């Protein structure tokens, strides 16, 4: 079976322009004073970081992980454990520790999973995330099925995340930094090697690259970045539960990356916004007679996913490319 193909590693000018305009819009957005939507956009940006971290594996290295939520959720739990009952944790401590915990988990699990290929990799990553899920689900000491509340959000260094505006701009900064970092990485020798592994692992090994170490490094790095997203998620919602590590969370991340178009980081980011927007619209659909369209959002979401796979398997940005180079 063919390896997943990445696209538009060099972004066309139109996409660059779009991203710049989107950044300006995001910077200005909180001034619209729409509290509900400000929070929604904060969540979209958090998920964008999560999706970009997965793109490092899925789009750039060609490793389709169906268990990426494990690292996302684990980081969230770390924040919850570090938060005292009556005060916020310092983010200067909680953020690095959350990311380190996620990275460590990814390193240990990665040691087992990156030696598998293709379908085995998909199934095994899924099984390991499920293992983490049950560890937290079954143990009352870790929070159990109810999860853990964070009474006061993290703060420190003049950044109080109880303040919605502070959290919004902090998340925006994290997203921009993650994007810049991954774009830089994509064109670094390390990123080129990961790309080589996706295109032809045997050949890359024959050229003298220890593909195991490269894949493990990518897996760990992706885990750490998922941990960043998990930290922000916990800081925003003030609540963590095992569902954050669940199967649906992982599958949604894959969907976000696909929806936007994988392998170029920008697509994953756009996909995350698009996915959440669709979800919001579907859940908000009106009642027609006795038939509540919004209540059946799963049907629309499922149909959308099936449709995207059939019609636009290379995502929104793939459609763009098809338009640009019709002969390919």
């Amino acid at each position, binding site marked *: 079976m063919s390896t997943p193909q990445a696209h538009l590693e060099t972004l066309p000018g139109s996409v660059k322009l779009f991203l710049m305009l989107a950044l300006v819009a995001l910077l200005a957005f909180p001034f619209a004073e729409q509290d509900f939507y400000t929070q929604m956009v904060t969540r979209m940006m958090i998920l964008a970081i999560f999706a970009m971290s997965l793109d490092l594996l899925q789009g750039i290295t060609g490793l389709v992980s169906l268990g990426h939520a494990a690292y996302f959720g684990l980081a969230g739990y770390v924040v919850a454990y570090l938060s005292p009952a009556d005060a916020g944790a310092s983010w200067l401590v909680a953020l690095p520790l959350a990311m380190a915990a996620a990275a460590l988990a990814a390193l240990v699990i990665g040691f087992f999973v990156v030696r598998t290929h293709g379908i085995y990799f998909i199934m095994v990553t899924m099984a390991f995330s499920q293992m983490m899920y049950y560890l937290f689900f*079954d143990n009352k000491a870790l929070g159990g099925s109810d999860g853990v509340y964070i009474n006061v959000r993290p703060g420190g260094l003049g950044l109080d995340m109880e303040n919605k505006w502070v959290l919004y701009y902090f998340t925006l900064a994290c997203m921009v930094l993650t994007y810049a970092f991954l774009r830089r990485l994509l064109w670094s020798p390390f990123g080129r090697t990961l790309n080589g592994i996706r295109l032809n692992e045997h050949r890359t090994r024959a050229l003298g690259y220890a593909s195991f170490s490269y894949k493990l490094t990518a897996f760990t790095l992706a885990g750490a970045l998922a941990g960043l997203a998990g930290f922000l998620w916990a800081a925003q919602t003030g609540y963590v539960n095992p569902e954050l590590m669940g199967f649906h969370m992982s599958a949604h991340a894959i969907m976000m990356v696909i929806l936007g178009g994988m392998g170029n980081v920008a697509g994953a980011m756009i996909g995350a916004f698009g996915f959440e927007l669709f979800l919001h619209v579907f859940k908000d659909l009106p009642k027609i007679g006795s038939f509540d369209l919004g209540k059946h959002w799963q049907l629309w979401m499922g149909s959308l996913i099936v449709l995207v796979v059939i019609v636009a398997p290379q995502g929104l940005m793939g459609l763009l490319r098809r338009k640009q180079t019709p002969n390919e």
Partner: protein
Amino acid sequence: MDFANFFIQLLNSVQYGLLLFLLAAGLTLIFGIMGVVNLAHGSFYMLGAYTAYALTGAWDNLFLAVLVGAVISLAIGWTLEKILFKHFYKRDHLDQVLLTFGLIYIFEEIRSMIWGDDVHNVAIPGSLNWSIGLTDTLSYPAYRLFMLAVCLLLALGLWLLISRTKIGMKIRAGAFNSDMAQALGVNIVRLHALVFALGVTLASVAGMLISPLSSVYPYMGSQVLIMCFVVVVIGGIGSVRGALTAALLVGLVDTFGKVLLPQFASMLVYVLMALVLLYKPEGLFKQ
């Protein structure tokens, strides 16, 4: 743990293992022959259980319900393969994962529209609603034994089908080398539809058989699907013999884990998988 208790747990673990086998056999065959990752396999189990609930509600006869349900599943599986799945055999695994993940949503919503989101119970057939006394205090329900026997028969039937019949020979040839089998005159298109329908039917029959014991509830397919993945990975993808061995192993570890180490029981199975992968990255019986 005294002997009677041990014996009961042993029976339970074999019964659970065989149930997993019915599901995993379809999954592993569909992957081995068509190269399709089917996340929606658990949905067929769920839909089977709901079908049993609906049919026993109408006729009050589980045996008849299972037979009719199996025929319906065969038809549904065949149709789904023809209109949807066959277009995805040559596609990327990623596309298959997404397609079947989308299908999970659709199947769950269809279930919600038809039967709602409540938990339902299916009555144990009157003729099997008794227990065998083992000691003064312990007994074993007859329905569980019946289920054990049915699963055994189905597993045996599947083995005979695959290793002793002409169709089975074609299935094995297809799993070994699909293109070569086709070149030698096997009607691979029909074989694919047959294998897919067979897998769907086994999953749905498993759901129907378990329904009186576990009750029928939304998303019951997800959990069992992940267990089946573990079974398929341990056994080696495409190997039915591997699936049987792994299913029994998983049943044993899970059941005894729940008795001896309840805090970590759900994790033990994954630890087992990790160990197998460490020594045999392609599963125990990779062909």
